């Protein structure tokens, strides 16, 4: 458990610059909240809020997709896995790191959103429900990307993740039933956030969030199974 947290915190520190850049977006929203006439420009503020929320999901794919590749490329993974750290533990640390990074954004965005959208009439509780949706989407997207990153480079890993998270639900919802849009609920969770408005501040769908968490665990197990067979000392291409 301790190793997992150490790896997660270390991962966050390694990603400090992308995290910082994303936090700048939230800072921009906070700045606009300061200078804008909130009741009059509330729609614009909500748009930026939703935009930043989607960025977080996209970034979590990049975080997950590059985590193992970078560690293998720099060969830093060898020193870590030469200790009493199992590969499953190592992956858990990375999943936790991606989740913590996303959670950091979401909490910052939630605070800024409550402060900027609240006075415009958006229920503050709904802001936090939306953040739960975003965290769930980030966890699942990051873990799927991490699974692909065990055997693909970041570009192909991120592409495969995008195809899987958008393609499979789209095909399943057309071929089987629209309810199957939730089969890999990253799209449906993100779309729910994007559809939120002052008229209909949609809250998180508990079932879909639970499904995302369950699938995150399933993909984490799958990633660990695949990663157990990877020759980590072999140079990545």
């Amino acid at each position: 458990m301790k190793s997992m947290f150490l790896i997660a915190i270390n991962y966050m520190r390694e990603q400090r610059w992308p995290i910082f850049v994303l936090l700048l977006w939230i800072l921009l929203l906070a700045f606009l909240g300061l200078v804008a006439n909130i009741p009059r420009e509330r729609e614009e503020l909500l748009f930026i809020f939703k935009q930043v929320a989607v960025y977080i999901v996209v970034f979590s794919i990049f975080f997950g997709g590059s985590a193992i590749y970078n560690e293998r490329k720099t060969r830093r993974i060898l020193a870590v896995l030469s200790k009493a750290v199992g590969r499953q533990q190592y992956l858990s640390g990375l999943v936790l790191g991606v989740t913590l990074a996303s959670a950091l954004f979401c909490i910052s965005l939630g605070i800024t959103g409550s402060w900027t959208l609240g006075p415009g009439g958006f229920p503050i509780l709904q802001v936090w429900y939306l953040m739960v949706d975003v965290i769930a989407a980030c966890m699942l997207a990051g873990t799927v990307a991490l699974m692909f990153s065990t055997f693909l480079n970041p570009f192909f890993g991120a592409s495969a993740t995008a195809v899987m998270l958008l393609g499979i639900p789209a095909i399943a919802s057309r071929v089987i039933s629209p309810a199957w849009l939730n089969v890999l609920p990253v799209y449906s969770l993100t779309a729910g956030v994007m559809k939120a408005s002052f008229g209909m501040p949609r809250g998180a769908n508990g079932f879909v969030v639970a499904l995302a968490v369950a699938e995150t665990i399933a993909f984490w197990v799958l990633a660990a199974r695949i990663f157990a067979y990877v020759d980590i000392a072999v140079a990545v291409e």
Partner: protein
Amino acid sequence: MAAALEFLGISKEYRSLPGRRRLIALDDFRVSVEAGEIFGFLGPNGAGKSTAMHLAMGFMRASRGGGRMLGYRFGHVKTRRRVGFLSENVALYYRNADFLVRFYGALNGMGGSHLARRAAEVLQLLGLQADAKRNVGKFSRGMLQRVGLAQALVNDPDLLILDEPTSALDPQARVLVRELLLSARAAGKTIFLSSHLLSEVELVCDRVAILNHGKLARVGRTGDLLKGAGQTEIVARNIAAGEFAGARAENGVVRFCVGQDVQRETFERIWKLGGEIVSANPATRSLEEIFLEVTTGNGKAAMPTSANAARGSA
């Protein structure tokens, strides 16, 4: 004595895309490293030394066979708590040295004041106490290698697996590491050491294995390997170099090797020629000579010194 590290007929093949040529990095490799010894692991570049070490650490899976480390199969996670590993190209996070050593110690389950004390101790042992608070990103390669050694030693391991630990070190630091390895052996630790610095290996290793093209080419006690095969090196004066095959004159003496079975006859011949024997010692070979003999497959051409000398004509 129990084996600390055993390679039990392990093989590793690298394959890229289907249909492409496969590369056999390690072929039915069998070696047993006894507890409490320093075992030198030699071989030219690409011989499979690092592959063998990575297999032992569980970084990769064997194509065939397996092995045991401290009594457990390769890759056993908890066993690594008792192992220290240093890779060939040290790659560490950019933090200060003290933090890094504590980070790697914590990954091995260490903690609290014990970890802090041990981290300070190993950094001091490696002459890094003054730089403990500096970011390793600003370190020279030699210093980085010393931090790498510090993280390998922080858990006071029973088995040290070191892949070229002194390749970037200056002579002073090499002596430091050599003394460190010898004191670790005195404390009952086992060291599995890969190096291209053959003189270092000759000085510290109890046994040596030479790997060539993924196959074990030679293994034995260092002293036994260095003994010239039944040869005596004779140094004499007041005789002509041409009297004995392979003899060479240098600094007023004549130096040559003869088989031990003809040693007595050779002495008598020297005296008969009016010469004087300065010394007669069992001929020794350098590890470099043996290494070249094994890896080039042409021992005589590769051996420029005494071991290459022809037998006496007597």
